[in-house]
């Protein structure tokens, strides 16, 4: 079973849940928050890395500046003066310009979109992507990291509710939405729940920082019939452990039960 850990709002505790869930149940972990991967801080071991590429156009000498490539590009990723100049950071690697160039003056070359790292700890293997700074789209890299995924995995998703989050949860069998009990947390939980429902995913909620003086999240879950899978208390001790990059050894049973409850 593949379980994705997601949230609309950032900083609600996805990494905490994903990392501890993976380690205490000995399941391999995939950090698909390639813009800001953090799971590596908690999973120590020997690391292997390789460069991840995507295809972008390169212009050959026979370009006559006709401008077809610029006209077909939907992403303003090519400008033409004396010849065509592609802007790889804006390119979506669709291949249209290369195929449609009347002079066959473009070819596709590899462009670094990030790197893929595998870390083997005593308990599990962590695989994560790290997006090259300046790259706009995380989706190409997320797709490549996902290719390494087996049928059992914990997935740490990026925050938000747009394409990177959708790409990260799309192959999951179950989604854990981590929510904090604040009006912000509730607002963004609703958005995330809307996305995963639309994708037809089974999902439940883990309330993190439980004990904050706001009951809206639990009330919403009750009203909508969304299962609350567990609650992690609001505690300075947990926050300090997180700040030092430590696992929550005291809560091992909680994460074992959380997994058993889903799988």
């Amino acid at each position, binding site marked *: 079973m593949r379980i994705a850990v997601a949230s609309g709002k950032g900083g609600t505790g996805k990494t905490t849940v994903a990392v501890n869930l993976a380690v205490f149940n000995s399941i391999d972990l995939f950090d698909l928050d390639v813009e800001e991967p953090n799971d590596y801080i908690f999973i120590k071991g020997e690391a292997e890395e390789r460069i991840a590429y995507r295809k972008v156009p390169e212009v050959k000498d026979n370009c006559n500046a006709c401008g077809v490539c610029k006209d*077909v590009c939907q992403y303003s990723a090519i400008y033409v003066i004396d010849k065509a100049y592609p802007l790889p950071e804006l390119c979506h690697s669709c291949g249209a310009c290369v195929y449609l160039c009347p002079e066959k003056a473009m070819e596709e070359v590899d462009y670094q979109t990030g790197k893929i790292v595998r870390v083997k700890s005593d308990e599990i293997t962590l695989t994560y992507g790290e997006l090259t700074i300046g790259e*706009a789209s995380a989706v190409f890299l997320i797709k490549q990291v996902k290719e390494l995924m087996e049928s059992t995995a914990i997935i740490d998703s990026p925050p938000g509710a747009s394409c990177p989050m959708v790409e990260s949860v799309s192959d999951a069998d179950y989604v854990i939405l981590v929510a904090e009990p604040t009006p912000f947390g509730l607002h963004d939980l609703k958005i995330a729940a809307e996305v995963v429902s639309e994708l037809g995913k089974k999902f439940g909620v883990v309330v993190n920082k439980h004990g904050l003086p706001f009951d809206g999240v639990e009330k919403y879950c009750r009203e909508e019939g969304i299962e609350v899978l567990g609650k992690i208390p609001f505690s300075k001790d947990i926050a300090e452990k997180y700040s030092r*990059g430590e696992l929550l050894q005291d809560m091992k049973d909680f994460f074992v039960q959380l997994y058993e409850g889903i799988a």
Partner: protein
Amino acid sequence: MISGKGGTGKTTFSATIHALDGGVIADCDVDAPNLHILLNPRILKAEDFIGTKKAEIVQDRCSGCGLCYELCRFGAISADGYFVDEKKCEGCAFCFNVCPEKAIEMRDVKTGDIYFSETQWGYFVHARLKPGEENTGRLVTEVKNRAKKVAEDVGSDFLIVDAAPGVGCPVIASLTGVDAAIIVTEPTASGLSDMMRVLELCEHFRIRPFVVVNKYDLNEDVTLKIEKYCSENEIEFAGRVPFDERILEQIANLSFPFSGKAAEKMVECWKKVKEVL
């Protein structure tokens, strides 16, 4: 206002500045916007945002040759019966341009709503992306440009742009054209790692960064590490904000503007940035 890591306090900080100094503010975290919850705006105008075009196969004209299916890089065209999966379509128009039967049309798709609003303190431009949509960057750019126009029209000295977490397209779209970036970080190993990446992003786009450490007393060792990193790399440090449980209560009760030691410290950090700029 950027952070790399989510949940470090960008929105709290942005809203506090707005309540102090008014002006114009934009919520460019269009995936998961939160500023409106605090600012309680009166919406003056709402508009649809047509953020993208998607391919549609006109079945009457389709000969079933399969060229579109072969060429689509995004797996958005299904082979049995040839139709487009809207969720996977990137709007690249490759299929539209190659279809020998001219059977493919590019249709406008609404990807969100944009709001122009008034708050008790000034003007506010915000949006909501349709959940699960793409092209966040375009919507962010639209929100930011409109807010800029409003700021010019009303003669505001500054525009606050509250950005999304991460370093990808919505953050890049929030950063282009700004004079400075306030990076709100937290003293955790993740906060530090993510701050380094947004600093690199600022350097890449030649934007002047200022660093604020929120909840600095959560781990003072990491806070010192952040300050040391800033001073060694000549990055302007705007200050540290203490952890304040009262602000959590105020968020829960939506009693805004915030008061207490964290809010006071945020105001100090902002004044420092404003003075330098």
